[in-house]
């Protein structure tokens, strides 16, 4: 038969092929109710709680208006003007004038610095007031005169009540010029930024907060523990490269007494990336189970199919690039010394110990000279360790309390990154540089 006929036989046989199966068991699995996957339960619960907590904080403890709306004194100087005497006399003469009419007072509230004083004379003054007749032009003139009178920050309105209350007008309605002059011409100036002396016995301590970010160039040492040199370790030692590492941190420091020495601590995250470029060329043997021969009996009515292992060889070559990553959290405890270089520059030097917590290593490492595999626990593991940190930095103060700087630093990890069961050791010294912001404050 030809190939086409053979293909039809294949189709006829395999298209209607049935596989024996336990349909009852299959139906039981198919129709049993599936539990809905609750994904990210913890995440949604936590987010909901965080939102509720934030709402309680903002709504339950609002900022009071009194805190927000208290006017902060600007410390502006309002100097009392000197020349009011001439104006006093003209006002006095106006008030004493027989033409001054009795008026209704409207005590308009005046904003202290902006509006103008209103008409005076609420009460019927004895003496000249009885004889006074309504004369709006005189009253307006008096108002104009009053506008030019200097005022003080005390907020007193220049009204008739004030003048009487302060004794500037006597019972007869006569203005006491000397008193007014003394009132309107203070002998002192209010200066900007009044600094009250502090008699506090407790000395303030200086602190700073320092967020930072930087890059590093990890220097790796990879050594084998066992005498027999593994070709994999040798290949890694020759070809595996450490890429630039990144780190970020938040530190806080405290100055010791009034000195320039300080202690600081905080938390830092670092990531080290290792890259390996593998070029491979090897022959792979694959073994599968299948038909190895078909024989027919002499009578032609029996066909015997013989199955066996089928070994095929294949030449495999290629190139692979893989990475693995170390993630570490460090808590440094360092002592430093800060030196001021002029009014706007600082430099500092610090050194100390580092508590290191290494997280799970991720990525792939070379398993054999042909392939990589995901990092296994018996190669690298999470661990705690001790190291050291030294740094030298220079900083520019953009404000008295805020500085921006650059720092060169080196971290050393004493403990190997590999597991105790591993047959090699991998250690790092990490020089790097970072930029930081320092916010200074005292308590």
């Amino acid at each position: 038969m030809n190939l086409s006929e053979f293909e039809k036989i294949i189709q006829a046989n395999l298209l209607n092929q049935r596989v024996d199966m336990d349909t009852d068991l299959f139906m039981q699995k198919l129709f049993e109710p599936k539990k809905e996957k609750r994904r990210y339960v913890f995440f949604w619960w936590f987010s909901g709680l965080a939102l509720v907590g934030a709402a309680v904080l903002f709504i339950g403890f609002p900022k009071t208006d009194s805190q927000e709306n208290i006017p902060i004194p600007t410390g502006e100087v309002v100097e009392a003007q000197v020349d009011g005497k001439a104006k006093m006399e003209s006002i006095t003469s106006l008030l004493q004038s027989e033409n001054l009419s009795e008026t209704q007072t409207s005590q308009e509230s005046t904003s202290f610095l902006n509006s103008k004083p209103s008409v005076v004379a609420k009460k019927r003054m004895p003496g000249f007031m009885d004889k006074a007749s309504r004369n709006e032009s005189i009253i307006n003139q008096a108002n104009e005169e009053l506008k030019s009178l200097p005022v003080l920050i005390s907020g007193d309105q220049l009204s008739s009540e004030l003048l009487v209350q302060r004794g500037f007008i006597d019972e007869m309605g006569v203005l006491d010029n000397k008193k007014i002059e003394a009132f309107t011409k203070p002998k002192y100036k209010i200066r900007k930024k009044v600094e009250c002396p502090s008699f506090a016995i407790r000395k303030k301590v200086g602190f700073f907060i320092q967020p930072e970010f930087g890059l590093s160039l990890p220097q790796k040492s990879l050594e084998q523990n066992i005498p027999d040199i593994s070709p994999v370790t040798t290949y890694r030692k020759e070809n595996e490269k450490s890429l630039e590492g990144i780190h970020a941190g938040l530190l806080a420091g405290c100055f010791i007494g009034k000195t320039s020495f300080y202690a600081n601590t905080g938390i830092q995250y670092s990531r080290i990336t290792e890259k390996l470029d593998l070029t491979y060329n090897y022959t792979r043997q694959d073994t599968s189970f299948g038909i190895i021969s078909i024989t027919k009996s002499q009578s032609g009515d029996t066909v015997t199919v013989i199955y066996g292992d089928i070994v095929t060889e294949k030449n495999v070559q290629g190139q692979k690039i893989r990475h693995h990553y170390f993630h570490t959290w460090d808590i440094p405890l360092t002592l430093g010394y800060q030196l001021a270089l002029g009014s706007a520059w600082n430099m500092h030097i610090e050194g100390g110990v580092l508590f290191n917590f290494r997280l799970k290593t991720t990525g792939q490492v070379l398993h054999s000279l042909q392939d990589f595999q995901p990092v296994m626990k018996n190669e690298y593991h999470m661990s705690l360790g001790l190291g050291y940190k030294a740094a030298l930095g220079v900083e520019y103060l953009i404000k008295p309390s805020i500085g921006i700087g650059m720092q060169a630093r080196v971290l050393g990890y004493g403990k190997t990154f590999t597991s105790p069961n591993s047959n090699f050791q991998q250690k790092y010294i990490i020089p790097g540089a970072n930029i930081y912001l320092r916010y200074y404050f005292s308590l």
Partner: protein
Amino acid sequence: MDIDRIIQGCKSGDRSCQEALVRSFAPRLLAVCRRYCKDFTLAEDVLQETFINIFKYINTYSGSGSFEGWMRRIAVTKSLEMNKRFFKVPLFSVDQEVQIGEVNIPDVYSLLGEEDLLKLIQQLPANQYLVFNMYIIEGYSHQEIAEILNIAEGTSRALLSRARANLVEKMNVFYPSFSSIAQV
């Protein structure tokens, strides 16, 4: 229960009709899934997903065309989905078709059973086996194969021709006494 009643029952969610459908067609659909999945356990999982999809989309079956053919397509699609997840089949572009000359296949091969035939074609490389399966056994056209596997139609044709040439070569190895003129 006839097939139309089963279909109507499944459309309305009748459990007894669903069970009847499973009993009637599960063994055949499992054979389809097993041809695409290397692992038998995986084939059973695929069959489960297939029936879930059949019950979910049965209302979209308009009645035109064979119902079994409609179910088989769902089984093939699900099998390929699972295959993609677990077994990467390299379907890189192949342009060159292989010309096969006259082949005279011994009749002994017509006596092979289902399992033997399956084992025979399963010895083809994965990509060639996939196209051979879909074209020869399932009856997809090259255009449909190209759409499903996201390859060019020419690649589908080239892979099929290579599959045929390989098959002939292997049959020559298993049963040497037949003549074939193949140009590879």
